[in-house]
């Protein structure tokens, strides 16, 4: 390096450091700027300015991260967790009018007949959790989870229902829970996105808004990984460009950008430089992450995962690998549960696709000591009717329609109290009669475990302080360990 270059470098360092001591640069880059500057105190101050730097929540957190297994399409709680002898007794009879007065259903007439589950239910574990025989693996984790049989939501159509479950609002345009958590806690990884979305089965009804950032800055939105090819778009170099060539190109680019930063004095260029450097690191870390051949035979078998194959099982295993690498929020979408016809067959088939891996994930996190500070959530956007859906004109029989007044979810880890079932529905499973948990309440409780008072995690937009729980939400004490 010649004398002149030395001088330029010195000047630049001073300039940017001054900037970061004082002012924020919007963007990811400041973290990596620290390494650029090779200076610890600069690194710290840069971190303080970086919107994705790890942040301290309001109070001591029980959980550091979330894996949300979103069962899109809405699995039937009546065939999985909420056993109703009343339905067996009155199977086939019309619903008593007082239950359905004034209610419109999406597809069926409210006077449809009641429909008992075709599955047998049994109690499992020390907690005696009641589950249907469709779940063959989950009983092994019965004492690790809390079943909530008293979920309530606001929407009965898929897109609004998914949007509501993920953003706390039926209207589009609000940040998703993953975006809120990332906004609140920042990221523990510099080489991977902070909020990753994985998907199996169909595309979701809510689309990109399910993991969107709403009015939050876009760096908080979920990054959907592709099922095949590069998980992250444009991760691979163009054909013919090797990693060395990429490095060499980025070196030239960096040199020119640094030179231009000297000329213009604009610290945003430092952020740009770092975006490119992080991109380069991501190019190495993402393929390593995706490489399931690194997992033991035993682990693969436990999940039912097959390297190289896109599946729910692979996604569960990937979720564990992602959080191990510091990703804050992993959300899996498995859109396959919309059983308007032949619900028993559908449930059986989707349990075959998911039950083993879901169970394996919980037990694997446990055995690795990760379950304690990782929240695992399992559930769909709403539940399904105690009445049968049957319509020969639509070629539908023995199905269930959408139902929002009562459904089941389960949670595990991260400070949730394991080995219990909370909430109760009426004799047919229409309405919650004990310990109702509204979606807002679940959100409030998740945020609480992550260290937030849900009323204080806010973002000012259009003159109003918005929050995930809108003006609702009550902490569900009973869910806490």
């Amino acid at each position: 390096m010649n004398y002149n270059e030395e001088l330029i470098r010195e000047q630049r360092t001073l300039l940017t450091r001054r900037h970061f001591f004082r002012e924020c640069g919007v963007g990811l880059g400041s973290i990596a700027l620290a390494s650029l500057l090779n200076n610890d105190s600069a690194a710290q101050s840069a971190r303080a300015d970086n919107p994705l730097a790890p942040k301290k929540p309001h109070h001591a957190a029980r959980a550091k991260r979330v894996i949300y297994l979103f069962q899109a399409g809405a699995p039937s709680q009546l065939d999985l967790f909420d056993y109703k002898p009343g339905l067996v007794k009155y199977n086939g009879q019309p619903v008593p009018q007082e239950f359905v007065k004034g209610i419109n259903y999406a597809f069926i007439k409210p006077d449809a007949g009641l429909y008992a589950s075709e599955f047998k239910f049994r109690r499992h574990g020390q907690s005696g959790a009641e589950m249907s025989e469709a779940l063959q693996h989950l009983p092994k984790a019965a004492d690790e989870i809390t079943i909530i049989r008293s979920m309530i939501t606001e929407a009965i159509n898929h897109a609004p229902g998914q949007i509501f479950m993920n953003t706390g609002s039926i209207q589009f345009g609000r940040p998703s829970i993953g975006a809120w958590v990332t906004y609140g806690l920042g990221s523990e990884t510099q080489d991977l996105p902070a909020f990753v979305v994985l998907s199996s089965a169909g595309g979701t009804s809510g689309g990109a808004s399910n993991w969107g950032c709403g009015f939050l800055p876009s760096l908080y939105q979920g990054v959907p990984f592709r099922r095949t090819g590069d998980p992250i778009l444009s991760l691979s170099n163009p054909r013919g460009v090797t990693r060395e060539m990429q490095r060499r190109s980025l070196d030239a680019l960096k040199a020119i950008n640094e030179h231009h930063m000297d000329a213009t004095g604009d610290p945003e260029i430092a952020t740009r430089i770092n975006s490119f450097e992080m991109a380069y690191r991501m190019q190495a870390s993402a393929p390593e992450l995706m490489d399931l051949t690194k997992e033991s035979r035993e682990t693969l078998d436990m999940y039912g995962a097959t390297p190289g194959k896109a599946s729910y099982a692979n996604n569960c295993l990937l979720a564990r690998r992602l959080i191990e690498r510091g990703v804050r929020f992993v959300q899996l979408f498995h859109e396959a549960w919309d059983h308007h016809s032949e619900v028993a067959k559908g449930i059986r088939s989707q349990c075959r696709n998911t039950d083993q891996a879901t169970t394996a994930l919980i037990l694997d996190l446990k055995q690795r000591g990760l379950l304690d500070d990782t929240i695992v959530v399992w559930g769909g956007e709403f539940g399904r009717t105690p009445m049968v859906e049957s319509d020969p004109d639509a070629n539908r029989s023995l199905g269930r329609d959408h139902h929002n007044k009562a459904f089941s979810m389960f949670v595990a880890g991260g400070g949730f109290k394991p080995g219990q079932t909370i909430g109760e529905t009426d004799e047919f499973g229409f309405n919650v009669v004990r310990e109702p948990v509204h979606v807002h309440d679940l959100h409030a409780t998740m945020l609480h475990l992550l260290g937030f008072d849900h009323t204080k995690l806010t973002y000012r937009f259009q003159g109003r302080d918005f929050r995930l729980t809108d003006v609702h939400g009550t902490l569900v004490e009973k869910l806490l360990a």
Partner: protein
Amino acid sequence: MAKKMKLVCCLMLAFAALWLLHERQAANAQAKTVDFARDVEPIFRAHCYECHGPAKASAQLRLDNRQTAMKGGLGGAVILPGKSGESRLTHRVLGHGGEQRMPLGRESLKPEQIETLRKWIDEGAVWPETTAGQAAAATLPKHWAFTAPVRPALPDVKNKTWAKTPIDQFILAEIERQGLSPSPEASKETLLRRLSLDLTGLPPTIREIDAFLADASPTAYEKQVERLLASRHYGERWGRWWLDAARYADTNGFEKDLPRSIWPYRDWVIKAFNQDRPFDQFTIEQLAGDLLPAPTLDQRIATGFLRNSMLNQEGGVDPEQFRVEGLIDRVDAVGKTFLGLTINCAQCHTHKFDPIKQEEYYKFYAFLNSDDEPEIEVPGDEVARKREEILSKAQRIEDELIAQTPDLAQRMVAWEQELRYDDRQWTVLDDSEIFASFGVKFDKLEDGSFIPRGDNSTSNNYKITARTKLRGITGFRIEYQADQNLPRGGPGRAPDGSFYVTEFAAEAVPLDKSAGGVKVAFANATTDFERADFPVKNVIDGNLKTHWSSDAGPGRRNQARKMVFATSEPIGFEGGTLFNFQLIQRFDDTIKPGNVMPNIGRFRISVTTAPQPRADAASATTRRIFNTPAAQRTKEQQRELFRAYRTTVRNWDAANARIDELMKDWPYGPTTMALAPRGLERETRIFRRGDWKRPGEAVKPDTPAMLHPFPAGAPRNRLGLAQWIVDKNNPLTARVTVNRIWQQYFGVGLVTTPEDFGARCERPSHPELLDWLAREFVEKGWSVKQIHRLIVTSAVYRQSSNVPPKLQEADPTNRWLARSPRLRVDSEIIRDLALSVGGVLNLKVGGPPVYPPIPDGVLSLGYGQPMPWPTATGADRYRRAMYTFWKRSVPYPSLLVFDQPNGDFSCARRIRSNTPLQALTTLNDQLFMEAAQNFALRIVKEGEREAGAGDLDKMIYAFRLCTGRKPDAVELQHLMALLTEQAAWFNGRTAAAVYVSSPDLNKIPEDVDLHKIAPWTMVARVLLNMDETITRE
């Protein structure tokens, strides 16, 4: 909300102290009772209303009227009648409980005033409804933005030579007040690039740069401004800016997210900007173009602004719920875009910060609540010409028939006689409900008809239940009605407006359930339209494989139709009859291959007791003309009658067939979503807590009382609303618009929240400049181009964007504009720049959306089957980014990643992020790589021609293409080193060279040595990724 928790703590901590206070005060209590109007209200007025009144409502607390005062604020109730010791009002004015004493930052209330308040509360906080409390609100100073701007005088400045425009005076005065000084003017290269990007979204060509550099005339810069303002790409750049607020997208949103055709609206916006349509007219046309006298097609297209709302077509949705959601979105879009008002905050309750009552929200909403939603056709010149041709050919054939029929008039009178029909025999069954499969839901209209909304399907069974007291019923009639809310006007739901019926069945049940139901047997079925391959008897033959089709072919299919079913014997029970009808539609291949979802659209069922009922053989159109006295019929109507008549004359089969043959080629143009007034006004009711299922009091259209009055004589509809919005007394529209324009140039608006000019917005950085610009805008005839001209010719705009350390320290957010901002260009420009520099950008303006390459697997994130994406291989591959098909649930990734708003709701302000995913996109995305590959070919071929054979010359040329300027020695050194290295690497590596350098492996360039191109591709990629390239300096 944060305060709530704090309050709880405070209450606990302060309890003891308060209790003591209460005791002491109780001892001092006076005998006299407190009168609210005399004793309390003056205290509130003097000390509280400023922050807790209509102008501000801090902590969402308003003490200026009884209702809100009693309700309390964010922390809950502040007045607990009878309990002054527990009332937060007492705590706060005393400064107890660990929170700041009220009034904040002012002298505290006098002890006797506090005592008065306390006593008033203890006596039950009596607040008579009629006191001055409410009236007081009106006398408070209004929030600045709700008062019409007045043109301010230009401020004095010390530096008398810097200002070029009045704008500069305002900016300079502030710069000087801050102890700063303006930056020098940017270099000519930078200026031209800045100007080109800002006005057209495209970089300048080298010729343009050279011409500007060579132009030493004093008006050289102004000439460029005029050239660019006149460019057809100006409309694209600023049209796209408008489309953010208009929430434009090419799909309907929600789960199904099906494609929609509304791009003619996008093209209308581009055209309007290019023609510099005055902003008041621009506004009126978008909100109410259809309501203008004799609206042009363009004016009707403009109403697409309101139609850009999302549409939920998911199975099983309640259409009314999502119609309401759509209207809520429209109110939001109008509020944000034209008024800078968060009026939507008043949807569930009275606005917490701005003086907008909940009922005022619904009065505003009522303006938008009475519309039909047609998809109007935009035929275009070619379609219009072709139609004209067909019509005139057909007319010539008809003219021949007329000429050879001397007794035509008598024959047609006889024909009309023959078709006499008594419509009064029919009674509409309007005591009815409907249920259909697949969650298809219906609106029931005022005339007893049903119209399906939302989801659609290929097959269905409409089950109608109807009750009647009539006895002796001899027949049923189904009228399939045309309706502008259906595709091409219906009467069916297929994209061409056709439909089919497989089977009609009826069951009669005694209303008193004294007996079981009986299936109704039919004697015959008649209709006014029948195709040989789909006779009407098919619908009562009990066979699910035979159908009747409404499709009369191109140019003729969008007409009302009817069917009559005569019963075998009279029906009707004593005590009334309940009918269960089924309208079965069982799709199969015989219907029309490739036809999608041809279900029945709007229809209604009637009954008759007249003997042997038959369908009126005259079509609805013919009948309407028959109903006009012969003497009053127009030429066109007479021709229309002849058209119907000739088809009934057997002798004319040959001529009719010739015309049928001609009509087969009847062309259709694209459609666009628009608005049209609805015949009957919908009643608007306040929704309690914003819940559409809890309608309250009815309201009439009106605008918020806190703003200027509704223009005298303006109609109480969308047109009146639009006129009110652009009324010269409107304090908001002009300010909001110039602010959003300013924001586009300077990164941040004078008001930082362009969507919210309400009480909670930050004060403008330059309030006087904002008002000056707003007045200028209106007084210069709402010319948007004039505002652009003013801004871009100003000295403030022309400053250098360099950031001297001192200035960075003094004004880190560049609020005082002592320099020009450096801004990463918008998502679309990132891509357009790369393709433009690559020399392949297709500059065609307008037209249907296009499908550039999209990464594999992206579309499968959408619901259901991935939508077809016919990746463009020809000229459309490299169109400007704004034409890329925009799917709301799966936004185009390389645009989304650069913060393109996804169109779910109105966006007045884009965020500018800077992330590694962006870096990956510009480095590795296929399209960006293709840009680099084409750029390399351009450098080598064009560069050699234009700049010289040497690599250094070519490098300078390439650098200029990207940045507008020549590289300095350091930059050149880095780039040349890279080129040399890469050249060495590719030497002998043919495969790598081919991959890296060829945009299309099927068309490998043959006239060049790819070993030499590939290193340039690597350099080109670096050049395109330079910060400076994607930045507007």
